[in-house]
């Protein structure tokens, strides 16, 4: 287990999540993509903490990442609810008001 190896796995998770967030049509699936991306960031943060600077302070950054994950999920579900209520759809293609 080396820093490079863990970072590679984190990069793989991030790229998979990016693919999902870009390619999925259903809002909940887009959120899953973003979750996988944040998952990769969390893993990379943990690896950098452990291999480079294992001080107590560094862990607080991981707490921030966890909080970001929670906020993303809650707001994502709220937006999905609004779109579902107004369009009766859960697809991203139904929400294009801001499109050019």
């Amino acid at each position: 287990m080396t820093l490079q190896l863990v970072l590679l796995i984190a990069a793989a998770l991030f790229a998979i999540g990016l693919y999902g967030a870009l390619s999925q049509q259903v809002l909940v699936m887009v959120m899953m993509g973003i979750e996988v991306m944040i998952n990769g960031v969390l893993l990379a943060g943990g690896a950098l903490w452990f291999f480079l600077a294992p001080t107590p302070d560094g862990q607080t950054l991981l707490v921030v990442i966890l909080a970001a994950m929670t906020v993303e999920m809650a707001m994502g579900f709220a937006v999905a609810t609004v779109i579902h209520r107004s369009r009766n759809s859960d697809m991203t293609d139904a929400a294009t008001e801001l499109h050019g």
Partner: protein
Amino acid sequence: MSVVLFWFFSIVAVASAAAVFIVNSMARASYALALSFIAVGAIIVQLELDYIGVITILMMVMEMAIMAVFMVMYMGMNPALMPMDMRHNKHRSAIIAVFVFVLLAAGALLIPWPERMGVPAANVTASLGESLMGSKMLVMLVISPVLFATIIASLVLANPRGRYDRRGDNLDRRGADGRSEPEDPIRGGLGR
């Protein structure tokens, strides 16, 4: 032993993350995502971050359970289990994802990482608590209002029609005779 465990959890994490977007039903996708989070949480525990790893696993398993409830709410019981293709713009997304992976991997492998500075505290969890309640309290002070604002914002977005919609910003709008409830196409509250 720890090397074997690390490889096992890594393969599970990446494979199940990929499975999220390969399987063709949303219920399976959310279980695959939960599995990926559990594997990443286990790797984080291996990195001696016990608290963060366990919290990740607990939080994400609960989150996936909630996600399954939302999926059933939006799509009904059957579509969540029914196979379907939910992707658009596949090729360009794949190209961008591969490019980002190559970029990040190159960074991970080519950057001359510095030497390790310091050693983990004897009790990592206690030291996290002490720094959150001590020198890094600003993190706690920022996260708390952000989470509170999230609760309010998501309630405002998800709430269909509240008393402020019926009675105005100062809650003083009344019906035609000046005393009764205002006319409203969608009734709400008690006795609706």
